[in-house]
């Protein structure tokens, strides 16, 4: 243990650098989770709020497969209402504010869904 001091110093520097994000949050506090802005006239979504929050991506994948591969285009939702399975024309008709509704959370979580490379965003009215 001739170089004990150097090793310990190195370890300390490593720990400080590796845990920098945690120090940053401990000192500066975490960024507040965004609150998606809901501007819809509808009272309920096609599924309960908690289900949509946690599994909307799975629902969209199911819609995609049902429409494209099975050719079925309508979906009986949780309210018993039949809706057209369409991201652009159903989801975005209730939520025309894509920037505040979709992008706010996706950016916060650093996920970049590539839906919008093909699916057309309607021009935001707001």
């Amino acid at each position, binding site marked *: 243990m001739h170089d004990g001091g150097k090793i310990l110093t190195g370890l300390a520097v490593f720990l400080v650098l590796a845990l920098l994000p945690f120090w940053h949050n401990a000192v500066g506090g975490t960024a507040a989770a965004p609150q998606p802005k809901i501007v819809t006239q509808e009272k309920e979504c096609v599924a309960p709020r908690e289900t949509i929050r946690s599994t909307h991506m799975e629902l969209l994948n199911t819609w995609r497969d049902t429409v*494209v*591969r099975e050719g079925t285009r309508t979906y009986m939702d949780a309210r018993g209402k039949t809706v057209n399975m369409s991201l*652009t024309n159903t989801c975005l008709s209730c939520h025309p504010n894509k920037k505040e509704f979709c992008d706010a959370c996706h950016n916060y979580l650093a996920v970049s869904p*590539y839906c919008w490379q*093909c*699916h*057309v965003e309607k021009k935001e009215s707001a």
Partner: protein
Amino acid sequence: MERERRALLKLAGLTVVGLAGGALARTVEASSKHAAKPGTKRLAMVIDPRKCLEKDGCTDCIGACHAAHNVPAIDDPRREVKWIWKEKFSGAFPDQEAEYVDEALTSKPVLVFCNHCDNPPCVRVCPTQATWRRDDGIVMMDWHRCIGCRYCVAGCPYGSRSFNWVDPRPFLKSPTPDFPTRTKGVVEKCTFCDERIGKGQQPACVEACKEKALVFGDLNDPDSAVRQTLRARFALRRKAGLGTRPAIHYLV
């Protein structure tokens, strides 16, 4: 030793019989694949070139299709994307060598698009099942699944498939929100307007044609417009000798 040899020979014999049976079953299954299932449709189109050529330079169907499906207008022929277009007669029907046919037909362009074959080579070569044949005969595309390998482009004997070499978005003036655009690196083609047929509408090109040169319908229904037209007049199919069994018929 003798007994072991006998057991081995028995086992080998059984294996051969088993393998042959499996292969036979697969052959039977493959040959019955193209037979119409009762109650299913076989969507097809009949084109009357004489009616189509009535109005010189008419591109109503092409315009309607490309607008409805966000098909980009790229001028560079190496990168262009097309779902429905006009082809020289000799290009569309290279195997039609009949001489002295009415030049009014052979000198004019032919309207061509995906033939929605019964036996589509593009489907056979697609490694991801991004393209497949629906029960109603439509050769569909799933752009979510396409990996852009272009085997289907090479496999299609009609050149019906286009590859997106560049991002198509800048080439679309006002994309319709009713249909997705495509992205760079996927193959696209005519889907027989599956999205309109699902709503009980006719394909966009059929609806756009004022001369009624395009007739769309179900070949399995003996009273459908396509069957009636095909009974009344002789029709050609493109490169029929290849065995792809196209669903687009050209009246003579």
